[in-house]
């Protein structure tokens, strides 16, 4: 993956930049020792690494504003960083950049149960937002797999989803307001505790802009009251087609499960070997979870089971209690760990129309054979968000490149059948060069024009999201 050449004129400013930053930040908030900046050399896309010129860890909106104002004045690129859990390389530095980490900004600023909102600093982790309100019976709905570690800042930047977004939506549907610092240091307030922000939907375009439009330092998030309970059913099928048809029938029936997860045979086997959750060895496995009171759950599960039975499942296992529910989820929740144990893997994130599921799985199987790398599929079937995991050996010469080439083919397939390159992980650097498969040059130009408005000098995370060739003219040193 190509990254722009570092600008030596920017690197030459390092000493004066450090001096300027020390005037506005505490001593320990400016990290310049090359041993220490290495901690920021990559995010969860570990195949690509580059230590930044500097890293800064501001503790307030004012400090973020000061940092950005200084970097703006000196023409220094800034790469914002939440918790560094991006799988797409969204927080990958360049050698001439300042990493702006929000990790020290993790306070809860306000909880307001009467209005069902929480206002937090964005360095706070996703799960700890729920942690702050769960004693009152509330939760924050978006639940990316990395929720123990990932920060709200990154969730907003990538518009993160999760297993339960079929019912509750993704970050953008649960974000009501932000305090954002623009690249020139100006602080703007957008939205608030009311349900729709006025004027153009700036909040909507900021969410998912991968840290390219501004640095969000505070966020007002919608919190919801927890349901009385939730329980899953596990359904095994001997073909992907039938499992796909079952998903479609469940959705059409009027039941809206909170989650419909799908695993294929390679994934089932790996998870079973790792977690010993007692999964059947079959072609396709669905985990369908519903919510409500005990009686409501029973009612919905019986409807789902009736639909499933019409498709002749090879296994049907209804969770009767929390323990059984935990066992059903155990394998699915350890899928990524299981894969990591047997191999290096690359996790893709394309979304497809649900109706094309069987065709896409078949063609992924063909591509897997063609490239000689195994692919395991685990995904959110209710909304078509796939996570093909390509297994490879990073220590074997050329395998990373083969893996990336196969990944690109799979993502092009997602686009070809009417889907998209990324459903919840973001483009980052990983899918940057595939953008022209989904969008025309004019479509991308329209997006670049948005960045022109927010960050005219193109200093915020400039080498991400769009192919470098497309942004070259805008990224010229100023």
């Amino acid at each position, binding site marked *: 993956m190509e990254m722009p050449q570092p600008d030596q004129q920017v690197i030459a400013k390092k000493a004066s930049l450090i001096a300027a930053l020390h005037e506005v930040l505490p001593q320990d908030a400016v990290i310049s020792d090359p041993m220490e900046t290495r901690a920021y050399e990559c995010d969860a896309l570990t195949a690509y690494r580059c230590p930044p010129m500097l890293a800064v860890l501001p503790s307030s909106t004012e400090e973020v504003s000061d940092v950005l104002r200084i970097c703006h004045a000196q023409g220094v690129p800034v790469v914002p960083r939440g918790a560094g859990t991006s799988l797409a390389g969204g927080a990958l530095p360049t050698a001439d950049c300042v990493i702006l980490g929000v990790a020290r900004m993790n306070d809860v600023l306000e909880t307001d*149960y*009467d*209005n*069902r909102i929480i206002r937090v600093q964005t360095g706070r982790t996703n799960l700890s937002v729920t942690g702050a309100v769960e004693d009152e*019976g509330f939760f924050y709905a978006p639940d990316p797999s990395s929720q123990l570690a990932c920060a709200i800042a990154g969730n907003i930047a990538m*518009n993160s989803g999760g297993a339960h977004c*079929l019912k509750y939506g993704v970050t*953008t549907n649960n974000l009501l307001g932000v305090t954002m610092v623009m690249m020139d240091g100006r602080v*703007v*307030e957008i939205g608030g*505790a*009311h*349900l*729709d922000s006025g*004027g*153009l*939907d*700036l909040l909507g*375009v900021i*969410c*998912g*802009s991968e840290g390219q439009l501004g640095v969000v330092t505070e966020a007002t998030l919608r919190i919801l*009251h*927890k349901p009385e309970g939730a329980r899953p059913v596990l359904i095994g099928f001997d073909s992907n087609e039938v499992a796909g048809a079952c*998903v479609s*029938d469940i*959705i*059409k*029936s*009027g039941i*809206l499960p909170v989650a419909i997860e799908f695993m294929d045979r390679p994934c089932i086997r790996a998870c079973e070997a790792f977690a010993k959750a007692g999964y059947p060895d079959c072609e396709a496995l669905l985990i369908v979870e519903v919510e409500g*009171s005990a*009686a*409501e759950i029973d009612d919905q599960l019986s409807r789902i089971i009736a639909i499933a039975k019409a498709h002749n499942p090879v296994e049907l296992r209804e969770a009767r209690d929390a323990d059984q529910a935990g066992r059903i989820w155990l394998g699915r929740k350890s899928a990524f760990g299981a894969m990591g144990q047997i191999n290096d893997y690359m996790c893709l994130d394309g*979304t497809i*129309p*649900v*109706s094309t599921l069987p065709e896409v799985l078949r063609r992924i199987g063909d591509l897997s054979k063609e490239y000689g790398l195994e692919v395991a599929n685990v995904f959110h079937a209710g*909304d*078509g*968000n796939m996570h093909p995991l390509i297994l490879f050996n990073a220590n074997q010469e050329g395998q990373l490149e083969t893996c990336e080439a196969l990944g690109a083919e799979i993502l092009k397939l997602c686009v070809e059948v*009417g*889907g*998209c390159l*990324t*459903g919840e992980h973001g*483009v980052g650097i990983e*899918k940057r060069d595939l*953008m022209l498969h*989904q*969008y*025309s040059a*004019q*479509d991308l130009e*329209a*997006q670049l*024009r948005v960045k022109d*408005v*927010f960050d005219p000098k193109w200093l915020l995370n400039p080498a991400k999201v*769009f192919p470098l060739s497309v942004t070259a003219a805008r990224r010229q040193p100023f």
Partner: protein
Amino acid sequence: MITPKDESELATAVAEAQGPLRISGGDSRGLTGTGAQLSVAGLSGVSLYEPGALTMVAAAGTPVAEITAMLETERQQLAFEPADLRGLLGRGGAPTIGGAFATNSSGPRRVQAGAARDFLLGVRFVDGRGEILKNGGRVMKNVTGYDLVKLMAGAHGTLGVMSEVSFKVLPRAEFTGTLVWNDLDWAESLSVFQGAMNSPFDVTGAARLPGANGTSKTLVRLEGFETSVLYRLGQLQSRMPATPVDKLVTDAGESDALWKAVRDVAPFHDKAGAVWRSSVKPSDMLRVVDQVSGEHLLDWAGGLIWSMVDPAVDLRAALASVGGHSTLVRPGAGQDDVPRFEPQPAPLAALAAGLRAQFDPRGILNPGLMG
């Protein structure tokens, strides 16, 4: 009136426009600029409907009624309940799906299912240069590039003229139950809303309809399978011992009529007065009804307030300290110069102006409407 028949004619019409265009679909919502009328009503028809994937793709000028009827055959619906404002505004025309999204028109289910903008998955549109552009797609999860879909929703045609929309639909509930309280005071209504919303019972509407002579109905809606709704209705009532319910509506037609009245602001039809729509923090509703004299209809658990007031009343000035924002939906006499949308703080106004300059450099798309 310019009435292109397809997207390429639409693009030509915009590219060749010599002056301001007043963008319309069914022209039923009354929130357009001034200029030569450009109607997308000729771009009509559903091109894709996958009930099992909960998705539909339609030309922007497709009437909402046509879409609703098609969804009805699969027992599905537009869950965000776009308003039909013809009665309120005394206008004709057929509300279109493009208009519903361009105005981000979201009814009572906003509190649970989301706003129109949350259901819009993809757009094709013609920008102010006459270029055909697309963003998003037809899948439910999509973070590929910037979300211009959200930007287009609620832009009222000022950034581009939508030609096609793809959107998420949802199953229509098998059963609806509505709890009705008569003539509560405002604080009691708010307390009912909070009790309902802060419960685990998945409330899909919390509203208050004004009636004649100061009467009112406070409403809470639950939807789903019958046994489940009945169970939750009982649970909710038992949690509110201080405010016993006056009526439990389980007849589908009767419930539907109540929520349509909320959605379409029926109590203000055929009555004189300016009508404002204010979006506030729900608990601030008490300050709004205290500070603005007039009739008020509440939706979104208090977070959306439709106020019918004397045109001489400067509602925005009265609410300056409250926060949120107000839209003048039905201007009264002498209000021609009142901005329809709340003027924004300078930094946001600058960003919005910057975006308009990028997407509509000649300033011809509903100019002046949003600032």
